[in-house]
């Protein structure tokens, strides 16, 4: 786009900002973008905010563009034009990376991972996932203004993990020269009365974290391997009693993984043992008790 050419490299448009807030449903993306929009308004700028949160129920993607400047034409931020990317979920932070201004864009992300069910490549326990592989250390290494923090952990430590969004807001606040009271007033407008104290604490914690990070005294958090907390994997084996099977086809048609079939004699056989998750649906629904699922733990945690 030609806008790229008109803009002095790295400079903010006369004190204005393009801020992209991303996350998944229920994390409070919209709440912090409203606070940011209000701060822009207080500074006497024209503000445009646009959001997509239609799929937000049950952990769908939510993003919000906040733009404030003397004059804002488009409500959305173009790729490479965001002064800041605030991400409430790790994979979302990576997905939106190319919206960040090269060189000067500020990256702030919670290292918490919310793995959507469809990221799982199969339904076995301890399944491999298609979830983003990049670690915070790798991202911080590549982006000059990157801050990756365990905001959810910090918020949980203060009493409510849901205030992670406000921790990130506090973290970003050091990039804007705005008195603390203004932030507090804006927050109070958008959080319920009962949640004010925790949100103030979360904001302060984020701000303190960012100041320390600027001074170079914060460590980049590491992320545990996905699913390591699920304990030992379970190996399932199917015992099919051919003498009891009457070939009704229920197990074949109702196995979620479609790993059973009827053989030439109309007896159920396991054709895809590797796809079997041990879910027991076949065992439960066999009217003739011909299937028994045996589960044994393999390896230690």
């Amino acid at each position, binding site marked *: 786009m030609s806008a790229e050419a008109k803009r002095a490299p790295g400079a903010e448009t006369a004190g204005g900002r393009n801020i992209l807030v991303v996350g998944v449903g229920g994390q409070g993306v919209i709440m912090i973008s409203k606070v940011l929009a209000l701060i822009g308004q207080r500074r006497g700028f024209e503000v445009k905010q646009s959001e997509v949160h239609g799929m937000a129920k049950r952990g769908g993607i939510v993003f919000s563009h906040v733009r404030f400047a003397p004059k804002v034409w488009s409500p959305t931020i173009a790729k490479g034009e965001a002064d800041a990317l605030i991400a409430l979920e790790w994979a979302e932070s990576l997905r939106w990376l190319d919206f960040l201004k090269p060189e000067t864009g500020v990256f702030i992300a919670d290292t918490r991972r919310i793995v959507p069910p469809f990221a799982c490549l199969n339904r076995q326990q301890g399944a491999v996932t298609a979830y983003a592989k990049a670690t915070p250390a790798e991202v911080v290494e590549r982006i000059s203004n990157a801050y990756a923090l365990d905001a959810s952990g910090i918020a949980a430590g203060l009493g409510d993990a849901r205030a992670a969004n406000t921790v990130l807001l506090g973290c970003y606040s050091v990039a804007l020269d705005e008195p603390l009271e203004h932030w507090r007033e804006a927050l109070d407008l958008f959080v319920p009365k009962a949640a004010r104290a925790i949100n103030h604490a979360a904001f302060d914690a984020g701000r303190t974290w960012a100041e320390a990070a600027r001074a170079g005294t914060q460590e980049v958090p590491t992320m545990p391997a996905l699913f390591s907390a699920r304990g030992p994997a379970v190996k399932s084996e199917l015992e099919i009693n051919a003498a009891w099977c009457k070939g009704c086809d229920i197990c074949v048609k109702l196995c979620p993984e479609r790993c059973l079939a009827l053989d030439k004699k109309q007896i159920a056989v396991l054709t895809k043992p590797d796809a079997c998750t041990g879910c027991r649906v076949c065992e*439960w629904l066999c*009217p003739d*008790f011909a299937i028994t699922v045996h589960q044994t733990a393999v390896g230690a945690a």
Partner: protein
Amino acid sequence: MTEPLAFDIREYLRLELMPHFMCPGCGHGIALRALLWAVHELGIAKDKLAVVSGIGCSGRVGAYIDANTYHTTHGRPLAFATGLALARPDLKVVVITGDGDCLAIGGNHLLHACRRNLDLTCLMFNNEVYGMTGGQVSPTTSATRLTTTTPTGNAEPVFDACRIAEAAGASFVGREVTRQVPALKNLIKSAMSHVGFSFVEVISDCTEIYGRKNDLGEAPEMILHQKADMRPEAFGNVADQPFRPNRLTTGILSQHDLPEYGETYRARAALLRSGEK
């Protein structure tokens, strides 16, 4: 108990009688699994369990259980079970009956068992037909269904067994489909743990006769359709039930704390014996 106990149904079956007599895909086998799974999770010893059944494919199911079983006459399992439960309060008495057994020939016994509120559990396997005798119409056969006695389609309205049971005084009423085996097991557990008369309608499939005759598909299609069609509208007005998107209401439909008859009966008997009355 955090981990559910491992359950192997074969420990509760009379293996020498297996495989059982039921047709391929018959829902009654699945219902039997749910019952034995519930017994296992409740930790009921086999010699403390008594299963009383009537006549029908449903009634035959009892024969495969390795416990005290009592195969009675058509329509009368509740009457036999009443005597047994009064005489042997140490036993967990479960009745297995069919829609024909329970609502047609045995309808009167059902009403009075509900009214008395004696501590026993009645499982009615509803497949909408007289399965054993070749597929005659039953009080739960849906409208327009073909049976050997309704060659042009059933023209009679259906009984809703759960409503009848509740109206007659049953202190626990529930319904579940065989498609939802863990839910059915849990419902039977709740029914058996309830003190008083508990009635559970188990929606089952007669694949070979009713399914064939009405072109309802093979066993897998029938079980997949359980929640979608061919069932009566039922219990829509139970106030505290969560909304369910299908026409068939399942789960615990009603539960009341009412005096249990066996206790009252034994207290009276003790009074008589003591000579004070």
